[in-house]
């Protein structure tokens, strides 16, 4: 019950802050959970609810939300909603120098009094004085000033240094004059009236008070624009339809790097699976050879790359491959007298990535194949031994055909995993070396996911919309792979059922 009340309170808070959509979402979830745990007809769902909810909120919802962001111009320039962007602009204010007052701070017992004196030529006579204030911490309430012409004796004014010490408190002061105008801190010597730069107009437009130019909000571009198309910063978030996709596939500056990155992603994932399968399967077959001693020891040692946390081994390789300090170049230098630039040359960088990923990946395939080979009936090999078959014949006639079917869906998952192997690229090369002369930085070793990450989180502009569009493309590719995978495993199940 308390939880329900808490949720209700939260919902109200969110609704009050103008996020009706989020409030609805939370309200629905709350109502649903209440129903599930109170109603007697939903016994099964009491057990399923937390797990299914967690998956919906943190796995399914981000996917849908990503697709939605892909159709907007969400970026660091267009971060806020239209209302909040307008609110931000309306808060902007300028100092009015003609209505500035010099200020002094005088001690008054334990407290202080702030005295304002008119300044500048032709200033009106007469100053103002504040009631006794305690200049500690932030002062939230407006301070009402009184007219003052030096009627009473005040202590010596504070020196500049004493004022600097109390600057935080002074900066939070809002001084209201008897004529209701508000003065704010405007430097170590003066308080001044701040005047807003913008005025809200009907229909959400903004008028610049200085020259009367009206900026209309454009729901197509996501900016406030004047008649000439001049834009105000910040813009706001709007739907842009397929603009991100048009840019991705239509704009030659984008398409070039995008296509090369796509090709490299496929090559990278494909070759990784190929190499690790070649090594892993060979090892599995070898380690299944009963004539070989110490097989358990070998298996444990060869399994090690899989046991070490990925982020550590990838960084270890990053250090080992370092051109000047790395151990690998030290060895190559000693033996062959060469020092390859693993991180500066695109081809070498790609080679390095493949070497590292094969190292990381083969134990997985080895373990898979070992399990699959164990399930092959031994009498098949006995029969082939009687027929006088050589080991290679055994492998290509018995082992390979029998494990290829169950292995295929697992290899497809491995391909899909490496297709999105963000951790490896991000930690090893970060996509570098970059292509020259591209509009958005793009790396020769970037794969699609790491490219997306760079567009969204590292490079100037933080173009979330474009990044989400690329993510959506990746979704569809992964979905196709997953469906292919499902089909493979299902046809396998059906065959099992048929027997």
């Amino acid at each position, binding site marked *: 019950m308390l939880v329900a009340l808490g949720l209700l309170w939260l919902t109200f808070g969110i609704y009050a802050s103008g996020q009706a959509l989020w409030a609805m979402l939370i309200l629905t979830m709350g109502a649903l959970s209440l129903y599930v745990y109170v109603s007697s007809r939903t016994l099964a769902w009491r057990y399923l609810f937390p797990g299914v909810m967690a998956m919906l909120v943190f796995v399914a919802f981000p996917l849908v939300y990503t697709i939605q962001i892909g159709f907007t111009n969400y970026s660091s320039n267009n971060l806020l909603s239209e209302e909040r962007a307008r609110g931000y602009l309306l808060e902007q204010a300028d100092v009015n120098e003609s209505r500035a007052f010099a200020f002094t701070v005088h001690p008054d017992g334990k407290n202080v009094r702030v005295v304002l004196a008119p300044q500048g030529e032709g200033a009106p006579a007469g100053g103002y004085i504040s009631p006794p204030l305690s200049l500690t911490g932030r002062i939230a309430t407006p301070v009402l000033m009184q007219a003052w012409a030096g009627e009473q004796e005040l202590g010596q004014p504070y020196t500049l240094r004493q004022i600097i010490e109390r600057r935080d408190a002074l900066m939070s002061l809002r001084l209201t004059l008897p004529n209701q105008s508000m003065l704010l801190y405007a430097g170590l010597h003066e308080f001044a009236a701040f005047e807003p730069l913008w005025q809200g107009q009907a229909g959400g437009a903004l008028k610049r008070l200085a020259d009367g130019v009206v900026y209309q909000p454009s729901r197509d571009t996501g900016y406030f624009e004047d008649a000439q198309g001049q834009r105000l910063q910040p813009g706001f978030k709007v739907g842009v339809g397929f603009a991100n996709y048009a840019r991705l596939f239509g704009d030659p500056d984008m398409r070039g790097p995008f296509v090369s990155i796509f090709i490299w992603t496929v090559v990278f994932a494909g070759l990784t699976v190929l190499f690790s399968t070649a090594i892993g399967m060979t090892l599995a077959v070898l380690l299944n050879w009963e004539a070989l001693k110490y097989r358990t020891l070998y298996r444990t040692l060869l399994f090690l790359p899989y046991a070490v946390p990925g982020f*550590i081994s990838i960084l270890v390789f990053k250090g080992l491959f370092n051109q000047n*300090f790395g151990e690998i170049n030290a060895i190559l230098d000693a033996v062959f007298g060469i020092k390859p630039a693993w991180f500066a040359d695109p081809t070498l960088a790609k080679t390095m990535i493949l070497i590292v990923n094969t190292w990381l990946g083969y134990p997985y395939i080895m373990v898979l194949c070992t399990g699959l080979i164990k399930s092959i009936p031994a009498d098949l090999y006995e029969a082939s031994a009687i027929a006088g078959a050589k080991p290679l014949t055994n492998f290509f006639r018995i082992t390979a055909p029998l494990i290829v079917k169950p292995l295929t869906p697992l290899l497809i998952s491995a391909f899909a995993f490496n297709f999105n192997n963000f951790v490896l690229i991000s930690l090893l090369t970060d996509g570098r070396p970059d292509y020259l002369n591209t509009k958005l930085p793009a790396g020769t070793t970037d794969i699609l996911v790491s490219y997306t990450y760079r567009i969204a989180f590292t490079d100037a502009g933080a173009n979330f919309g474009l990044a989400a569009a690329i993510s959506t493309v990746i979704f569809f590719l992964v979905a196709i792979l997953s469906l292919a995978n499902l089909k493979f495993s299902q046809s396998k199940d059906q065959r099992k059922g048929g027997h």
Partner: protein
Amino acid sequence: MAVVTGKSQRWRIAAAHVGLWLLIAVTLFPLLAVVSISLRPGNFATGSLIPTEISLEHWRLALGFSYTQADGVVVQPPFPVLLWLWNSIKIATISSLLIVSISTTAAYGFARLRFRFKSTILNSMLLLQMFPVAVALVAIYAIFEAIGGFIPWLGIETHGGLIVAYIGGVAMHIWTIKGYFETIPTEIEECAKVDGATSWQTFYRVLLPMAVPILMVVFVLAFIGTIIEYPIASVLLREEPNLTLAVGSKYYLYEQRYLWGDFAAAAVLSGLPITLVFLAAQRWIVSGLTSGGVKG
């Protein structure tokens, strides 16, 4: 099976041994190198693989002590490795506990109770799990930024938010536990029901005590999975004292400030326990592997 061993067989065995040892040498080289580098003085000395001079300077820094060089300069630890390790362990422990409790109850529902759309939900869970988190990072960032606006301790730069984000990855674990529950005969639970136990009591008092081993396994799997998780953590956490090990470690190897030796010590310090846990849990992990999980 009895197969006659000829001369060629012996040659082949010898060749296999040599080949395997060569491969093991290549495989273990990076791991041994990093141990030796962590014991070698200086941050970019290229020396022999077996260090001629053992120095514990990097280890002192990794453990959070300062270190005085021969010329009297005091070197402060470059990064709070132990704090990062603590962050990692804290986040992994809490989220693994939550994952275990959530997936256990859900697995009970899927294994024992009847309801509509059961197989649809199970299959869509599997499909959902195939989408890599790294692709939805933008949305995850935006979601947690929005949540953080209302509940500050669940927003960006908080461990609470990261823990909550990890709870989404329960599908694999639900499948594992469900498989185990299905191997336990239902008769015992039916007896309990006859004795008047409610559904929750049968689950909590009867089934759960029998399932402790699998819960341990799932806990270890979830623990390792969250400790090595990099993409979400790198998006949600940016400030140095907040980082987890997986995110923090890369700061050692910046081009401008290349702390190779210090990194090596920190890597061995933090990697060794995880590796040992992984090797200990290897048997169960391997059986889980064949059902389609891939490690990052």
